């Protein structure tokens, strides 16, 4: 009995401890959930309570995209400017939109169904001025009765005919610009049908089941933070949770019909007559054709996926004088082919992160032309703007689809060799007693920042490379596709900003050095990595300024040197006899700057841009 009682006592105690533990766990879990929720929404303007993204392939090859979500509005910005409408673009010939529900639950719980006039079909702006894409529509779903704490309830389905895309496929970033409490992604295919997929940048596990003769693969993702775009960041596809999937059995199943379409499109019954006068080299001809395509064919910026990965023939595009980037690339390639020059459109992916085993065309977004002139290396050209330099430097290492004569190949864009990029300038100046300047300079430009094609076609003159002074007697010592060496004489004045007997003058800077790298104004903190166009970049200036007796530099001699994980900056300003010596250099090793390394870039950027070290100060003395 005692035993029994003791046991009972122990059991009671155990149960009490168990309950206490459960309460503690419950409290902790509740606090944790509250804290997570609070952290997730403290800086948010709205929060998705739930989102469903469901793709269902039907037996006949048609498929449905079904989206359902509840979005809670937290701020005025959210309902006045950001989430008042949902825009769904579709192809009226091959897709049908069905809106199941558009309702707002107001803050007091009142449910308001959107009126009939809240659904308006308009032409997507990117399809303007193009009868060929006039069948595209954008459904503007207006959410009415919005206020703070209201919840938008939207449910719609987009029905795709079997021939809209070559397979059910997509490549989507799963985060939004508002946090998501619960996200369900579901792929449904008839049991036995091929389904390739990959969830990137997330640890969520797929649940793979058979339901009613269909294979259902589902992911549940919770508490996803909002993703806000920052300047010069890598594409969100590189680091945000992302789903790629395809029902195509293999790449060839996608590429073969795409190739057949492309071969048809390239056929130009009556190719345009080009005026080759003035074209002495193949490069002249290539750039002349690029100019025609850029300037005489209007840009119709319909994304390839919205066009169902279809395009018109070169002849039709030429006749209409307008085309999508791929269509313009086809016209350019076709004209060059007819002139006997090897040229091919390439579709370049904006991300290097691919799921190679998932055959999906959606990843390849921008169309360019790859061309190999005799006596030059392969160059990559835009169809929307005249290039200063081959785009291969910018896109080196990125995956692309190469639309070749025999097949479409998956390739990587290659740049010419492993060269450094940047500008190096040596300047020697002499200042006279009237503050006037004469002197000479030597400038090296190389790689991405070197405007080879612009100089080649005389679109810019060497004078535009150095704007701070008058440049004359320009002589080009070396001029190749990778680098240039230029020299010339300089004249000007030190009196940029006269202040009594003092004056200030800015240290000259190459227009094609760091200025062209596109580093934005940096903020103190950053949430996303920063991506620059190239690695191995340097901007260097070495200047000697000889001063007369009557002019004295009054800066404090400085020698600042910073080297860190990202690169280095060195700034030296010092007198040497009657001369002033200025050395400034900025170099970057890598174009990918992680969040961890960002403070290092900021350190370099701050020092480089400090006005104190960009300004020269002088005093005129009575002698």
């Amino acid at each position, binding site marked *: 009995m005692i035993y029994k009682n003791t046991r009972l006592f122990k059991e009671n105690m155990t149960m009490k401890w168990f309950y206490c533990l459960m309460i503690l766990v419950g409290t902790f879990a509740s606090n944790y959930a509250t804290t997570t929720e609070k952290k997730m929404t403290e*800086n948010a*303007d709205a929060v998705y309570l739930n989102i469903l993204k469901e793709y269902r392939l039907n037996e006949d090859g048609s498929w449905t995209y079904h989206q359902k979500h509840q979005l809670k509005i937290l*701020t*005025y*910005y959210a309902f*006045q*400017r*950001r989430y*008042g*409408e949902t825009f769904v673009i579709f192809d009226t010939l091959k897709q049908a939109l069905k809106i199941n529900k558009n309702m707002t639950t107001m803050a007091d719980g009142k449910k*308001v169904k959107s*009126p009939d*006039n*809240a659904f*308006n079909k*308009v*032409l*997507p702006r990117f399809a*303007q*001025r*193009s*009868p060929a894409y*006039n069948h595209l*529509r954008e459904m*503007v779903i*207006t959410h*009415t*009765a*919005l*206020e703070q704490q209201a919840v938008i309830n939207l449910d719609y389905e987009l029905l795709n005919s079997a021939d809209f895309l070559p397979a059910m496929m997509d490549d989507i970033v799963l985060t939004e*610009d508002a946090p998501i409490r619960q996200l369900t992604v579901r792929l449904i295919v008839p049991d036995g049908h091929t389904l390739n997929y990959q969830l990137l940048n997330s640890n969520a596990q797929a649940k793979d089941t058979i339901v009613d003769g269909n294979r259902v693969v589902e992911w549940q993702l919770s508490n996803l933070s909002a993703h*806000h775009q*920052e300047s010069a960041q890598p594409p969100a596809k590189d680091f945000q949770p992302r789903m790629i999937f395809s029902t195509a059995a293999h790449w060839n199943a996608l590429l073969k019909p795409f190739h057949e379409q492309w071969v048809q499109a390239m056929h130009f019954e009556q190719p345009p007559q080009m005026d080759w006068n003035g074209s002495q080299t193949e490069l002249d001809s290539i750039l002349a054709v690029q100019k025609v395509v850029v*300037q*005489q*064919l*209007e840009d119709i910026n319909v994304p390839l996926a919205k066009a169902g990965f279809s395009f018109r023939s070169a002849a039709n595009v*030429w*006749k*209409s*004088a*307008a085309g999508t980037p791929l269509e313009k690339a086809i016209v350019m390639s076709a004209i060059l082919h007819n002139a006997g020059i090897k040229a091919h459109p390439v579709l370049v992916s904006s991300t290097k992160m691919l799921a190679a085993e998932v055959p999906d065309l959606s990843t390849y977004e921008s169309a360019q032309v790859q061309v190999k002139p005799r006596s030059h290396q392969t160059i990559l050209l835009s169809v929307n703007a005249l290039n200063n330099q081959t785009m291969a430097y910018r896109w080196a290492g990125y995956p692309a689809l190469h639309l070749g004569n025999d097949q479409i190949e998956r390739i990587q864009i290659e740049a010419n060799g492993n060269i450094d990029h940047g500008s190096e300038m040596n300047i020697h100046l002499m200042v006279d007693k009237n503050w006037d300047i004469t002197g000479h300079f030597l400038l090296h430009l190389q790689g991405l920042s070197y405007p080879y094609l612009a100089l080649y076609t005389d679109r810019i003159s060497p004078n535009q490379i150095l704007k701070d002074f008058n440049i004359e007697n320009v002589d080009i010592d070396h001029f190749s596709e990778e680098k240039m060496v230029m020299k010339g004489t300089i004249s000007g004045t030190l009196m940029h*900003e006269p202040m*009594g007997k*003092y004056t*200030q003058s800015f240290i000259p800077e190459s227009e094609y050095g760091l200025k062209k790298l596109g580093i934005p*104004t*940096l*903020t*103190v903190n950053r949430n996303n990595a920063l991506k620059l166009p190239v690695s191995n970049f340097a901007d260097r200036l070495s200047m000697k300024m000889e001063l007369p007796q009557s002019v004295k530099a*009054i*800066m*404090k001699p400085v020698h600042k040197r910073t080297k860190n994980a990202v690169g280095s900056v060195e700034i030296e300003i010092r007198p040497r006899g009657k001369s002033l010596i200025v050395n400034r250099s900025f170099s970057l090793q890598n174009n990918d700057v992680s969040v961890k390394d960002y403070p290092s870039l900021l350190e370099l*950027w*701050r020092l480089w841009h*400090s*006005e*104190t070290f960009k300004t020269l*100060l002088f*005093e005129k003395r009575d002698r």
Partner: protein
Amino acid sequence: MRQFTKFSVLFGICLISTLPLRIFAQNGIWQKIENAGDYPDAHIVTIFDSTNVDVRDSGLSYVHFHRLIKILSEQGAVDKRVLTMNYDPLSAYVEIQKATIYRKDGSIEEVDLGAVRDYPAPARAIYWGARQKMLELGRLQPGDAIEVRLFRKGFTYALLQQQADDERYVPPMRGHFYDIVPFWTDQPIKEKVYRVWLPEDKELQYQFQNGEVMSSIEFMGDKTLYTFTKKDLRPFTKEPNMVAATDVAPELLLSTSPDWFAKSRWFYGVNEDYGSFEVTEPIRRKVEEILQGADSDDEKIYRLTHWVADEIRYSGLSMGEGEGYTLHKGSMTFRDRCGVCKDKAGMLVTMLRAAGFESYAAMTMAGSKINDIPADQFNHSVTVVKRDDGTYQLLDPTWVPFVRELWSSAEQQQQYLMGLPEGADLKTTPISPPEKHYYRINGTSKIHENGTLTGQFELEVEGQSDARFRRMFVRQFKANWDAFFQKQLLSQFPQMQINALQYDDPYDYSEPLKITVKYRIPDYAVITDSHIIFTPLVASNVFYHRYLNDHLFINTDLKEREYNFRTRCSKLIELNETIELPDYEEAGYIPQLSSVSGSGAAFEGGYQLDGQKIKLNQRITLKKRIYEPNDWPSFRKAVVSQKQLAKEKVVLKR
């Protein structure tokens, strides 16, 4: 006989509308194209632009356009590769009737009109069912010419019920006709002709402003024909920051409306008849809720205006029949919680009436001036409320979300017309004193021996200056707020270490916005054995941003101006800083500027060296929103003075 006369007039219109082609056919259209002339900077030249308008008794107009355009450049060829016409199907009908391409090689192509597309126009914010018709002409080349014939019947706005035949195209002021015809261009036009046939009993007021035109009047049976012709129109040269080109460029205005009073009464009536301001029970309850505890008329008007401004978002859904000048019913706007300017104005009228005020809607023209001829020169709608002293107070719920004003001073010097039962004349809003829109920075700082600057400053802004800063918050994600202001500071002072960046809740506009920054900037001043050289931080254009300080981005290179110019609002800028200095002997160079005082702006202030401190005090007064050319010298000098203090350095000798 009357029938015959009508037929004659119609025939006359058709004859005249085809006249240029016939003449050209006789004389050789190719010759006209070849002799179009040289215009080295132009992309196209319009050889003729002919518009013929037949106005019916109801005010309905049938408009025939006939143009011959020569392509001069590749850009011109691309621009003209499609022909588009915009229209609102509820109030207008348009047709592309003919398109002919005269190729440079001598061939002629008639473009197949079966290829015309008719589709909903691209839209954002306003979804009233606007449509476009488009015909692709395709590839053109310099030297080609296109001849087009277009037709439109109807009106710009939809107000009437959809009915059979042409009834739906009759203009809102039934029986009246108006038009505004630009006689200015950005590409050359060799000849522009505008003809209008009016029923003889309609009296037309017309005005040709900012230029000269050849005009004639002919009496043709029961119609009167007015003809306006101008030759050799050259591209209008704009000045930076000038007022809207329509304010100063040649333009023809026509109206049969007798005066503004008639227009005012019509606008009052059309909304009252529709019941735009009917107060429903849910609206009455909401008004009671909003006004709980409000003990003065000012407080009630303030609360209701801001409720509509903040809670009714700008988004236009179509009411179908009546869309245009008719304000949506308050019940619709209240249910949808959205509308465009006229619907927000109507919502406020409804709520003010529910609160016992006498209130009406008004029309105005944001962005350009209304000429004194009672044509429909309006693009914006607002609210007026009658105060106890009998005056009307203007309220603009569209322009004041999160703005500490009830009427946006960005609309000062702007014409408006109230829709009153007794009618009203056109009025102009007064200049808003710059002091109501102050932009004030007060700072204290210290320059250390190693050149580091430490300190803090506080920005305080009011009125429209407040609104500009506050919009930087309320028009972007909360998550981006700090980053935005960091960028403003670091773009000017890359070395700045921001120790504190503080601001109040920008959604709470009960007080002027304040932003406080505490900072440290290494190597800010150049300090040598012999000199201390620096520019005080507050003088250095701290927020150098086109939206926040638009006056700093006005091109001051122009010595004089031909046209009126504008800023966003009158503004008072006060910049004050006290800087503690390291030891020095004497002043080497202290920037000094003369005071400026003129009709446009004023500038005063500079530096005062006071022992171990130097004080900056600057006061720039920008006196209005719309300026005349003779305001430019003082405006320019004041702005240049501010910019000069921003770039010049203080030099102290040690």
